[in-house]
Each structure stands twice: as C-alpha cells, then as structure tokens.
C-alpha cells in the first residue's frame, strides 16, 4: 500500500509546477476615451524611438535616470514652473492636501522593441512607487510599502488617490 502511495506521490512531485504568473498589471483606457486637453506643463512626455532611445520632455535621457526624474516630476515638491501644477484635493483622512496634476504620456515608435517598452513601464512603476512612499512618509510617517504590507487599506487608498498612476499611451509614431 505504502509503495503504491509513494509511487503516486513521486509522480505528483515531479509533475507539479507551483505556478505563479507575475508581471506588470495595467489597465487599458476604454475604447471611447476622449480625454480633454491637458496643459503642457502637466505632462511628462516620454518618447521611445526605433533604436530604443529615450526622449523625455524633448531631452534625451538614459533609462537609469528616468525613475528619479519621473518621481520628482510626479511630486513637484519644489513647485517648479516647468513641472505640473499643484492643486488642493480633498482627501479622506487628510483633508485638503496639495497634490500635483501629473500625467505621463508614453509614446513608442512602430519598431520600438517590446523589451524596452516594458523597461520604461517598469521604470515608471518604480517612480510612482517612490513618489507614493515619499507622500506616505510625509503624511502617515510610514512608507507606502509598509502600508501595503500591513494591509492598511484606508490609508493605501488615500495615497493612491493623491498620486494616481496616470500613464497615457498614444499610438506609435512612424
């Protein structure tokens, strides 16, 4: 009896793959999306050309520098005039708080490689993450990662609505 069970066990051990799908989750905009005009200073324009080179607000940039630059853009703590406008937003728990009207626009060329596109998406995700960490530390004295881990859903939602992930994607250019 035990032998048969052993055999079966070994069979299952060998064939089992504990599967987990990991990757970057994104939500596509609805089909009839017609977003209005956005002021130029509120938009961080990222272009990736056919040779996978980056252009951020009309200046060439290396991918390694993007997360830090995008994070300062998203927050605009110094209220620079070339960075997004700040507005008072009524947040739960915090009341009226200054947040920026940031939007990130990402546009590829037709022959940009998918790998570098995912690289930029990843860099933007880490920019948002560090911006959220900053905001959360400033207002809740805890990093956003901490809040996520502690499942402090209320505060997580506040931070998310203060710094929403706004990445808009335009059609690829030639």
């Amino acid at each position, binding site marked *: 009896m035990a032998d048969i069970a*052993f055999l079966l066990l070994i069979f299952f051990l060998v064939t089992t793959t504990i599967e*987990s799908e990991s990757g970057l989750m994104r939500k*596509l905009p609805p089909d009839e999306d017609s977003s209005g005009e956005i002021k130029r200073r509120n938009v961080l324009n990222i272009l990736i050309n056919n040779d996978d080179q980056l252009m951020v607000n009309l200046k060439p940039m290396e991918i390694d520098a993007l997360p830090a630059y995008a994070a300062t853009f998203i927050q605009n703590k110094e209220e620079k005039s070339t960075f997004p406008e700040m507005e008072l937003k009524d947040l739960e728990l915090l009341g009226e708080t200054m947040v920026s009207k940031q939007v990130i626009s990402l546009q590829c060329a037709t022959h*940009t490689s*998918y790998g570098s*596109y995912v690289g930029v998406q990843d860099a933007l995700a880490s920019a948002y993450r560090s911006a959220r960490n900053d905001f959360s530390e400033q207002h809740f004295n805890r990093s956003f990662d901490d809040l996520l881990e502690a499942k402090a859903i209320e505060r997580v939602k506040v931070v998310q609505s203060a710094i929403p992930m706004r990445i808009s994607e335009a059609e*690829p250019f030639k």
Partner: protein
Amino acid sequence: MKFKTKRKKSLPEISTSSLPDIIFILLFFFMVTMVIKDDQSKFQVDRPTAVQIEKMKHLDLSATIWVGYDEGQSIPLIQFDKRLIQVDEVAGLIAEKRATLPESSAPLFTTIIKADRELPMYLITDIKQELRSINALKIQYSIQEES
C-alpha cells in the same frame, strides 16, 4: 538480595503502521495543489525582465496570448489556446473565452501577454487595440522571472 539490572535497554522500534496514512496525506496535498500546465507556446518566447512586478491573483480568470518568433524566423507569430492566430482574431477569441466565465467575474478577467522582448511595438499596440474593442481592459505584461 539480588538486584536485577537490565543490561540492554533497547529502543522500541518506530511503528510504521501509520506511514501509508502520512504518505496519502502528502499525496492528497500535492494532488489538490497541482495545476496541470497546458499553456505551452509552440515557439521560443524570450520575455523581458522587470522589477516592479505583481503576482496574479485570479489565474482562472485569465487568458494567455503568446507572441514571439519561430526559431530563426522574423515573422512574428501569435498563439492562443494551442493554435496560431492572426491579430484580428484576438478580439473574437478573447471575448469567447471571457463568455465562459460567470458574468460577475468578467471585470476581473485579465489577458496575459507573453511576448518576446524583440517584438516591434506596433504588434503589441494592435493586440491592445483588439482588447480595447471588446472592453477586455485588464492586461498583464508577463515577465521572465529570474531564478
């Protein structure tokens, strides 16, 4: 008076009568947790890498699209459900797949895009447009996990 000293204090043998039960419990555990992997691509897909990754929660509410190249070829191939398809078939097939799920879980439906890092973006954009046209908005760019 005579004292009887036990010379040999031999260890009692471990009973093995419960062994089959233990093995069976293990067996059931593996049977229950096992997922039979049946979504293999017919071609090599060298997925990109990333750091800020999230794990999928509802694997049963997802469909996978493979996009890649056949060895040494330069024409991209798209695979869904073990067969090769054209870009314009994506919307129909995904909609069909989504229709098999209960209506309440349709908003959670995620399309996993397992694409090769060398692919040109226009193809990925076309696939995304197809998905937008049927309102299947949740997507995941699958990445290569470093082991």
